[in-house]
């Protein structure tokens, strides 16, 4: 019978590795969230803009990103993209934490494409008379969006955005493929250094689950506190 040794997880070197991994995972998720929200908003507005070139560009962006797995994005941004850059930029990049940077780029692009769709469907649920009335009052497209449409669509948009946050949290694990020392990577490191596979993966599972649970609770709290108003 396998001897499950909890003390490995509670203190010592392996404990430190795992905690460092968890902290880096959280950092990756937060950093991605900060960058992808404004980007998603921009893409959503472009997709609904009256200019057809902007619309086409936004559709191309969303479709090309969403139909390719995150792993392929990560591989491209880590192995592929730096090769195109000129030599000095490459050298500068490799002196720094190029793994983490590529994983954040891949995560931001991927997450923002999904979030843009959620924001767009929130905006589309607002009756189009709101836009027409705003425009008739003399506001421009962007001003109507900012002052009239977006504040109203917020209640509808936040819950799906929170569930995208949950996906983002789970997606950070894929960064291990390119060697970012996040939760899953550290769990594997602990496993190969100590052969304590069950302990290491239990820690990682518990960590992922507890943050996922927090995000789920946040979502249900929000939906209770700010329910969607029916017109």
């Amino acid at each position, binding site marked *: 019978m*396998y001897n499950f040794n909890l003390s490995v997880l509670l203190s010592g070197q392996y404990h430190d590795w795992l905690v460092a991994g968890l902290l880096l995972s959280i950092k990756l998720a937060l950093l991605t969230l900060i960058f992808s929200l404004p980007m998603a908003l921009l893409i959503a507005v472009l997709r609904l803009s009256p200019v057809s070139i902007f619309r086409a560009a936004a559709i191309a962006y969303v479709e090309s990103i969403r*139909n*390719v797995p995150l792993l392929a994005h990560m*591989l491209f941004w880590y*192995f592929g993209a730096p090769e195109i850059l000129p030599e000095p930029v490459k050298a500068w990049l490799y002196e720094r934490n190029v793994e983490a940077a590529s994983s954040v780029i891949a995560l931001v692009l991927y997450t923002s494409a999904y979030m843009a769709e959620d924001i767009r469907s929130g905006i589309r649920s607002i009756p189009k008379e709101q836009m027409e009335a705003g425009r008739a009052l003399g506001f421009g497209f962007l001003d109507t969006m900012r002052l009239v449409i977006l504040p109203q669509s917020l209640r509808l948009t936040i819950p799906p955005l929170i569930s995208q946050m949950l996906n983002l949290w*789970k997606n950070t*694990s894929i960064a291990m493929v390119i060697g970012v020392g996040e939760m899953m990577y550290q769990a594997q490191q602990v496993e190969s250094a100590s052969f304590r596979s069950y302990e290491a993966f239990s820690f990682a599972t518990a960590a992922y*689950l507890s943050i*996922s649970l927090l995000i789920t609770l946040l979502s249900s709290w929000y939906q209770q506190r700010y329910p969607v108003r029916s017109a």
Partner: protein
Amino acid sequence: MFDILKNFGVFYLIGQYPHGPLGGLALTLILAALALLFALPVGLLLAMCRISPFPMLRLPVTGLIYVIRGTPLLMVIFWAYFLLPTLTGHKTDQFSTMLAALVIFDGAYLSEIIRAGIEGLPRGQMESARSLGFSYLQSMVLVVLPQALRNMLPSLVNQFISSVKETSLGYIISLSEVSFVAGQISTQLMTKPAEIYLLLGLTYFVMCFGLSRFAFWLERQLAVRSVKV
């Protein structure tokens, strides 16, 4: 990019087959299709438990689904990787490991789709079947499920798209599906990673975008038909 395709095109499509194990794009598609095929009955069973009137069935399954949906697929793959050999007693190959992980993971997600499909039907369907003398199971199998499954077809195609994308994670346990094969080609050539990974992205795009258009078309077809009824 054309040079790469000329030299490695066959390897990219089918791996080392017929001189070795099947791999590449063919393996990706087979894996995704098998995963969906096996995940469907699992998802159906989980969904039945999830909406069953017995708390004995409902509560543990609800818990299980929450746990699976709260963990990354990578975690499930690692558990399968370490648990399966212990449970079955002999070494499991990468394909079975990945398939098992995908069936469990997709089963949990499918069960939510199926549950939504069943709960989307008017309650009157179940009630009238029951009042005609059918048992709970009979009314489920004969009346509710056929209607629910029809409405779910577009979601099932979307789930297949997710499956195709998820198989890429086989890369981590060195399963020779298309991402892993692309990695191998890139290591052999050394100098063209950008082109190879662009090609990889393009491959996934063609498959998944085609499928998503198909789902969209299916949705419209179904909408047209239900209006007539």
